[in-house]
Each structure stands twice: as C-alpha cells, then as structure tokens.
C-alpha cells in the first residue's frame, strides 16, 4: 500500500536516521539510487543537512512532536545538478511498542508546480500591496458581496486606527454620521446592480476631524463576467472643498453687498412710481418723470438678474446648483410670470396664445428663471415689433412644452447651437449693441437639462426666434388642453 501511494514516503531509523524503507519515487526525487538504502540518510543526501532539515529531524526525534512543512523549498542534487523543488511534508516520530522513539518517518508531496504558481501570486500580491501603500489614496478591496477585506496603509495613517481595529470595527464608524445612511445605501445599491460607486464623503481622521474625500469603487469581473471583487479608492479633496467654501462665502457676501443698495434703489424708485399714480404727463425740465422711473426700475431688474446669473454660473461650475423640486401647475407659472413682466415692462405686448393645464415636478423658481430669460431676450432682441407670443402645449403623452416667439432680429443658422454655450455672444454689427454676459441661455440649458428636459430654438435671421423648452409631466392624467383650436 505504501508503495502505491502518490506520497513520497521514507522511514529513517535510529538517531543516525538510517534509510530503511523508501519508495522508488522518493529516490527519483532525491536524485539517488537504491544504494542509499541502509545508509545514514543525512550522510547519503548531505544537501538536506546543509538546508537545516537534519536539525528538524533531530528535533522530532528528541521531542516526539511531528513537524509539518508547507511548500518548503528544498534544493536537491539530481544528476550532478542542483535543483529546487517545493514540498509539503511531515516528519513523524516512530515509536516501538513501549512508546520509545526509534526513528522518523518522512511523508512528503511534491508541490513544486503549485508552489511556483502560489509564489507568483504572492509576489504579484506583494507588489500590489506595495503600490497600494505607496499611493496617497485610501485603497480598499471588498468581496463580491461588498464586505471589505483589505485596507491599505493610508487608512491606518489617516485614521490612527490599527489595521486590526479597522477590520474589526469596519469603515462605517469612520464615516460622518449624517452621511453614513446614504453612503451605505449607495454602496449596497452599487453592489446589488454591479454599477460603479462614486460619492463625496467625510472620513474621520486621527485628530477627530472629518475630512472630505471622493470615493470610487469599481467591480472586478472574472472571465464569465461575474463580479469577483470590488476595488475602491478614496482621494482627499479637503483643500478643494475649503476653496469651494471660501469662494461660495465670498460670492454670498458679494451678492449681499451688491443687492443691499439695489434693494434701496428699487424700493425708492417704486415708491416714487406709486406716488406718480397714473400720471405720465408730469415733467421736470421737459423730462417725463414716470417713464424715466420705469426705465430705472427696468434697469435695476436687469442688474439684479445679472448678479444672480453670475452666482448661478459659479454654482453650476461647482455642481452646487441644487433643485428644490415641488409639483406645480406649469400653466399657472407661465401666466404669473407674464403678469409680472408686463407690470414691469409696459411697452411690450405679451400674449398667451395656447394653454395646457398640467403639473410638473420641478424647481419652480428655476423654471420661472428660464421663462424670464426667454421673455426678456425676446423683448431685448425685438427693437421694432414688441409682440411676443407664448404657448403652453403638450408635446406628447409624457411631456409638456413652453414656447416663446418674438418677431425680432432672429439668429443665423450657424449660431443657433452655440448660443447655449457659456459666454457665447453672437457677433455682428447689429448684435454688438445688445449688452450681456452670454450666460442666460447657458444657465437656461443647464436648468432644463437638470430637469431631464430639452431646450431648443427655431429662428430665421430677420424674422424672429422661437425658444422652446420641454419638461416631463409629473401627473399624466392632469394634461388637458384649455383653449386648443
């Protein structure tokens, strides 16, 4: 039975370890022939003694405790050549009937192939760990189920926790408590769907401060496409956040400082206007007072919009433009906006041609802002014909559109897509007389885009323009046309 075993077996008797039994395979492995049987083993195969295996055998012989080796590299001289092999083996003490140790049995398996692969894997792994400790990011590896099993050294450096503590207590305790539920939810959802994870979050550092990071994780898939693990990295963005905060604070201050005097100017202008009543005839040294005050009031509104646009532009660049959604009647908003603008601008004739009663779930102020932008542009670019037609109409079962049509100077085909770009100004002798930053339509496009809507323009040079935005309807059953022909 012994001789048919795939294991390599040798019995070494006495304290000189005389080789008494050896299967042929072990002789092949040792690179020796039958001649070594009956000889002290360490003399017959001296390279074993050189590599410390003699000491191990003597230890087993002396103590009676077996010795187990896993993937131990052993050099053997075969056909005059020194060769490296790897073995799993055990040195087992041999006892007589009285229990006295009389020798050592060596039972070994050649695992050179496997060990070679394992070694490559281990080396590759060691290289990976080294790289992951070298980068300044916090690196994690998680199982396909999302359980983190590896944290790189940066985690211990940042948090001051030992690797054991991090593994034991988990990453959850290091997250900003208010963000933790969202982080967990997003992470679970990524794990469930196999989609990439990305989130800005705060992580507790060794000084007790929460530091902003951007965290990303991607699934690693095997050849069948199944997720085998997740690799994650978190990059410190605290400095960026500080800068963003400083900028935002500064802009808030600017906004406040600019709008405070504007509030007073507008207030006094409106007070004077209200005192004039309906009397447009009053003049002072041939200057008609009421129309002048109305102009001042209009210019104040324009200045206010420009300040707001500048702030919005900054918010969009920092991805800070958050929508405050509510469900409201779009038709009502259009009506109210027209009313407000008509009150402020008495020269234009704004007509609501078509109405559609429908609810949208959107940021009311922002949609109002887009409408004001469309209408004030229509007024601004129509120096002659001040008739502006507005329509609210269902585009299909799921969407509703608002269009603002003017009969002004129009836009050339080549400029029609570019006008939605930031800072884009149509160049031309005529257009240069119209002041502006080139922000309004860019903001309108961003705002409508954030509502999963579409913005477009139809225009012909010299024949006016029509600007249209389309939004998803929130409650379908509410669509009904009011005065459709």
């Amino acid at each position, binding site marked *: 039975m012994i001789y048919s075993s795939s294991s390599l077996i040798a019995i070494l008797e006495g304290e000189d370890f005389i080789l008494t039994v050896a299967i042929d395979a072990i002789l092949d492995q040792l690179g020796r022939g039958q001649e070594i049987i009956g000889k002290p083993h360490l003399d017959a195969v001296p390279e074993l003694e050189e590599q410390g295996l003699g000491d191990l055998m003597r230890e087993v012989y002396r103590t009676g405790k077996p010795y187990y080796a896993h993937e131990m590299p052993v050099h053997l001289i075969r056909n005059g050549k020194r060769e490296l092999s790897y073995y799993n083996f055990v040195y087992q003490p041999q006892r007589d009937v009285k229990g006295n140790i009389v020798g050592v049995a060596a039972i070994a398996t050649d695992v050179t192939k496997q060990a070679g692969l394992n070694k490559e894997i281990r080396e590759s792994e060691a290289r990976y760990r080294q790289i992951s400790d070298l980068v300044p990011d916090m690196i994690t590896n998680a199982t396909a189920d999302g359980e983190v099993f590896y944290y790189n050294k940066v985690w211990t450096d940042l948090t001051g926790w030992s690797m054991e503590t991090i593994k034991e207590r988990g990453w959850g305790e290091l997250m900003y408590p208010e963000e933790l539920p969202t982080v967990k939810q997003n992470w679970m959802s990524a794990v469930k769907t196999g989609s990439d994870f990305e989130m800005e979050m705060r992580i507790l550092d060794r000084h007790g401060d929460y530091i902003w990071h951007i965290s990303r994780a991607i699934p690693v898939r095997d050849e069948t496409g199944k997720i085998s693990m997740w690799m994650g990295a978190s990059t410190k963005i605290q400095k960026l956040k500080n800068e963003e905060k400083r900028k935002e604070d500064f802009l*808030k201050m600017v*906004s*406040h400082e*600019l*709008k*405070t*005097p*504007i*509030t*007073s*100017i*507008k*207030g*006094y202008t*409106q*007070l004077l206007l*209200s*005192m004039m009543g309906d009397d447009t005839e009053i003049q002072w040294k041939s200057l008609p007072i009421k129309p002048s005050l109305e102009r001042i009031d209009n210019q*104040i509104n324009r200045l*206010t919009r420009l300040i*707001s646009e500048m702030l919005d532009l900054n918010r969009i660049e920092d991805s800070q433009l958050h929508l*405050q959604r509510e469900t409201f009647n779009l038709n009502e908003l259009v009506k109210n906006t027209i009313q*407000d603008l008509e*009150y*402020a601008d008495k020269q234009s004739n704004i007509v609501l041609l078509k109405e559609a009663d429908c609810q949208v779930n959107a940021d009311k*102020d922002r949609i109002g802002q887009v409408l004001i932008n469309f209408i004030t542009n229509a007024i601004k670019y129509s120096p002659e014909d001040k008739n502006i037609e507005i329509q609210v109409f269902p585009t299909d079962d799921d969407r509703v559109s608002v269009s603002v049509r003017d009969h002004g100077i129009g836009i050339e085909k080549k400029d029609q897509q570019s006008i939605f770009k930031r800072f884009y100004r149509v160049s031309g002798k005529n257009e240069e007389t119209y002041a502006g930053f080139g922000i309004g339509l860019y903001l309108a496009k961003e705002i409508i885009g954030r509502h999963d809507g579409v913005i477009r323009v139809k225009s012909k040079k010299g024949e006016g323009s029509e600007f249209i935005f389309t939004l998803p309807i929130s409650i379908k059953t509410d669509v009904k046309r009011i005065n459709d022909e």
Partner: protein
Amino acid sequence: MMNKILVVDDDRVIGEMLKFMLNSNGYSAVISNKPEQTVHNILHSAIDLVILDQFMFGLSGMEVCRELQENEATARVPILMMSAQSAVKKNCLIAGATDFISKPFEMKALLSKIESILKLS
C-alpha cells in the same frame, strides 16, 4: 386699527425705505437695526408682524427667528424674512418664518405678502 410692523435690518437705508413704503401704504412701521433687541421691541410696541433680514452681522435672522419661536410671548407673531439669496428660503421657513421674499423685491409683491400674512393671523 393700523397694523404695526417691525422692520429688523442692519442696513439703515433699507430700514428707512421700508418705513416710508409701509407708512405710505396704511401701516405703522417701527425700524430697528439691532437684531438682539427684537424680542424686547415686539413686546414693547405691540407688533403685529416682523419683517426680518436674514443676513445680518451679529445675530443672524435665522437666530432671531428661532429666538422668537422659543419665546412664548413672541411665538405667535408672524415673521416675513427677506434675503438677497433666494436659496435660503427653505431654511428660513424651517427656522419658523411665516413667509419669505427675495431682495430686491417689487413693492407690490411685498405689500401683497404682508396683506395675506396679516389676514391669516
């Protein structure tokens, strides 16, 4: 009887302007540029409505708003908050403001807000 309105804004010019605006529209306005005296002013002058600026140095409008909410004697007085930043509207309402108006405002819009708040209270 004429409704009494307290205007709290650290900008004196806005305060004066609002006083004029309110007085010429049938209200009796009291102006203050000391937010920390708001509770005292309300109790002292039998105020029906407070127009409160959100962005003030020293005590912020938000803090004043909370203080008024916490004090039983002032908790029922309606507050109309105003700010140059329309984004703070939500937070103002959470802090206890009855309504909100962005600066700068249309006089008509301000008067209609005041009217509807006073009608409700």
